[in-house]
């Protein structure tokens, strides 16, 4: 059933989306840390 797959897919999209933002922020922070280390 379309609805079943849609539900499961959206669940995963939401979780992956959130983890994606966490990873992006982490990368940005690591770049800032490098900037600080260099000083």
């Amino acid at each position: 059933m379309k609805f079943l797959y849609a539900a499961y897919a959206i669940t995963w999209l939401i979780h992956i989306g959130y983890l994606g933002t966490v990873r992006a922020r982490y990368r940005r922070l690591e770049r800032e840390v490098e900037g600080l280390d260099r000083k």
Partner: protein
Amino acid sequence: MKKAFPIFALLTLVLLSYALYEALVAAPTEQTMGEVQRIFYYHVPSAWTAFLLFLVNFVASIVYLLNRSDKADILALVTAEVGVVFCTVVLVTGPIWARPVWGIWWTWDLRLTLTLVLWLIYVSYLVLRRFSSGSQTPLMAAVLAVFGALDVPLVYFSIWYFRTQHPSPVIGRGGSLDPRMTRVLLINWAAFLCLALLVCWSRYRLERLKREVEETQALEALLEPKGVR
């Protein structure tokens, strides 16, 4: 500690795949609703996980109010965010399940309405954290969290009584559950709990790093010789 993270991540992935298989293939098909009912194996454990995360947020907020621990504050922030994520999943899968089975997208039934109100309360919590000025944020947030958590039983009772006065379709399965279905449900719940733990762990690490960086930057700004760099 660092080594444990990727191992746990892998474990969680395996558990989630297994749980997915159980939900889609191994679990018996429901008589009245058909295949669509399998959404239930994602919808319900997400709700339980969200409630658990909000409970942890409540405890962490109280701990913060008692001893102003930075760790408690970070834990409160993390569980609120991840709780909202899981809550969003519940609110999205609920209507997707309801439409084919009961013909409606939404109904103000007890569980769905309670979840919506919880979502609203914790989103307002996150907005407060975003909008308040740095030094007071943990305290304000902790206070709001206590207000929110104390509100929950009142929300529950008000909606419960409202529903007895104005009955309407209930989304979900009535009555007892086939033991095979219960097993699949619990497997999925275990998988989602591990996922929640994993995500909270990552978010916690992110927040710790962020605060350390901010502290270092603040210190540097203080120690910079005044005048031209």
